């Protein structure tokens, strides 16, 4: 027997390459389906219903009604406008500052390593914690912000979070403080990948610093800048914890971004699950569209 039989028995339990692949992939895939894919498709389904999670009633199919209501609602457009304004201003400032900081940090000097680490600290903090302590910093009674910027003409009693003309700027300031280091980090990695000989060759050709910046530095780091902008744009569109912690969407609805509106509809005593899901789907489509625009631009930049 028994060598042959034994080898047959062994081969029966032998794990093929395909089997091994399945063994690695399926647990992950099942987990992904359960916690990611299923909720995505389920919320897509709910977005076409009038479902309320606390109503003890099955979802009733209402077609596109939720989407029509949202797109015809002035309030929803206002919240999209606030979100757009926040995203554009915040990401633009972060990109410019992040690029500038990366250019400064690139030069090695005494303590530059520690300085880089310190600059990176804000992005490592929890946004909720950041929101809470910036709330204290903005406090017109004992917060330090107004004192630090008193010289600019800001009155000491300015309540940044209670004024509709300032509250969004307060959130932008905090968002920029928190996420500029992220842009800086990506740009820095791009800058360090530029070979020195390019600059040396340009210098030999007597190219000016400005020329070197525009013709060597910018094209080299452009793909990474675009990736940073893409990530930051997506994050800014769905920004929730920071504005919620700072203003809760107020005063009134002056800083109610679309994510806060979704939260308000889904919870806070309302539990309009179908409405909230449909708004979330609209935001998802928006993010996919914006991402596609960026990725197309990124591919163009890469192709040169």
């Amino acid at each position, binding site marked *: 027997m028994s060598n042959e039989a034994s080898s047959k028995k062994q081969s029966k339990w032998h794990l093929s390459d395909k089997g091994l692949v399945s063994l690695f992939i399926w647990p992950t895939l099942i987990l992904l*389906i359960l916690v990611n894919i299923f909720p995505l*498709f389920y919320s897509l389904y709910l977005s076409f219903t009038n479902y309320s999670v606390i109503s003890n009633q099955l979802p009733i199919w209402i077609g596109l009604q939720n989407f029509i209501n949202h797109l015809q609602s002035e309030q929803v457009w206002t919240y999209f406008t606030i979100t757009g304004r926040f995203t554009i201003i915040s990401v633009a400032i972060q990109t410019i500052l992040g690029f500038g900081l990366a250019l400064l940090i690139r030069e090695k000097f005494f303590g530059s390593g520690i300085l880089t680490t310190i600059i990176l600290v804000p992005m490592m903090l929890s946004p909720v914690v950041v929101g809470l302590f910036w709330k204290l910093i903005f406090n017109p009674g004992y917060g330090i912000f107004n004192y630090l910027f008193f010289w600019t003409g800001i009155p000491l009693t300015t*309540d940044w979070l209670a004024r509709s003309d300032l509250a969004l700027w307060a959130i932008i300031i905090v968002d920029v403080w928190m996420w500029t280091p992220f842009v800086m980090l990506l740009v820095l990695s791009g800058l360090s990948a530029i070979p020195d000989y390019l600059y040396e060759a340009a210098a030999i050709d007597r190219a000016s610093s400005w020329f070197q910046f525009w013709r060597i530095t910018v094209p080299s780091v452009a793909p990474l800048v675009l990736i940073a902008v893409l990530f930051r744009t997506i994050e800014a569109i769905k920004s929730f914890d920071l504005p919620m912690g700072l203003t809760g969407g107020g*005063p*009134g609805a002056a800083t109610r971004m679309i994510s806060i509106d979704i939260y308000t509809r889904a919870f806070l*005593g309302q539990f309009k699950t179908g409405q909230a899901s449909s708004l979330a789907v609209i935001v998802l489509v928006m993010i996919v569209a914006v991402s596609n625009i960026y990725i197309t631009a990124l591919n163009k930049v890469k192709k040169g």
Partner: protein
Amino acid sequence: MKKILVLLVLLTMVLAACGPTAETPVVEQPAAEVPVVEAPAAAGVTELKILWAEWDPANFLQEIGNMYEAETGIKVNVVQEPWGSFYDLTAAQWAARSDTYDMVVGDSQWLGQGVVQGHYLNLTDFFVERGIHTSVTEATMKFYGEYPQGSGSYWAYPTEGDAVGWAYRTDLFEDPEQMAAFEAEYGYPLDVPETYAQLLDIAKFFTRPDDPFNGVGYGVGVYTQKDYDGMIMGYENVKFSWGADWYDPVTFEVEGVVNSPQAVEALEFYRELYSCCAPPGTSNAFFAEMNDAYISGQAAMIMNYFAFFPALANPGINPFADVTGYFTGPAGPYGDRYVALGGQGLSVHTYISPERQQASLDFIEWFAQEDVQLEWALLGGYTCNINVLESQEFLDVAPFNAAFAESMGIVKDFWNIPVFGQMLEPINRIMHAFLVDGQGTAQEALDQIAVEHRQILVDDGILD
């Protein structure tokens, strides 16, 4: 790839089909038909589970439960959920018709939902037979337990009474120089305010950030939080005391009620109180921020729920505990005097077994006894029992109990219909912009709220 996609979609559809069940449709009328099961069906029940928010009163109730266990052998387990997720958990339990918890100490505003959707057991006969409904103050029975109001149908035992009261600095109010200066300026003696006009005068008098007295630079702290019902509870004190209301109690009409001339005046007054005299940085403030403003010595007076006053009476927390006094909300300009209701009532779930329902009723009957209610009050719970509220023992046990006892007779509440949560949102959005940022006028704000409230009520079938 296509096959995988098809597989995913199919799997999702299968999972979706296994989603929520809708065995029981929403009942539009109070589910009054669930009979109270008579004793001795409670036999065999060894444990009762009560769901409540995570705070000191729940710990006190656990102590009361331990006493019950010592007497009857039935363990009482008070399960505490943080305030932020208390309603979410309760609503999820209700949606699933879960029998995990026998009872819930639910907010007064949840009453309509609990009744209309059939989650709360009808306690009317049980209360009437045992005289429980008359053992508590009329206002607390009405707002914590009766639905619809005035119907005589009871669904919850008023357990943790609460209302918005006021704390003030006696060292400021009783300082001879300040008293003389105040009288010279306003023409009447400085004392605990009896009217809101006096409260405003006092708040203005102590608002002097550039020349604080005893470190106090601001006159008054008021609720402004817009996330749930904080600002609304603050404004309600003034609104009700101006003789205004959220709706007509008979017709449920809101147009001309929520935006009545008195309601507009009240909102203008509340705005003035905030803008003239509130500590800076309290533009989205609720109970925690109120106590902070007081403990940090910023404000001469604050409004807050009585449930949060024990911290102010504790010298370990509040350095001004020894010079802190408490008073009931003052009267409005037309003689009305009301305070906003807080607190919760104890209800029994309909979908637990008859044995557990009976055991829950046995517990409520025991808990409602006067001596147990006194024990509850001495532990720190806010009883609604009439006799205990009037007893000297209760009045003496905490410096704010006298004001609390007075408040329990003049409480008034927000909507408690199933769509109460939807009614909060327009108020928070519109009124907050006027209150803290001065956008528009009080009339415009309340007109817009009336329009949106009416639409919610029409959509819900309450109004035509």
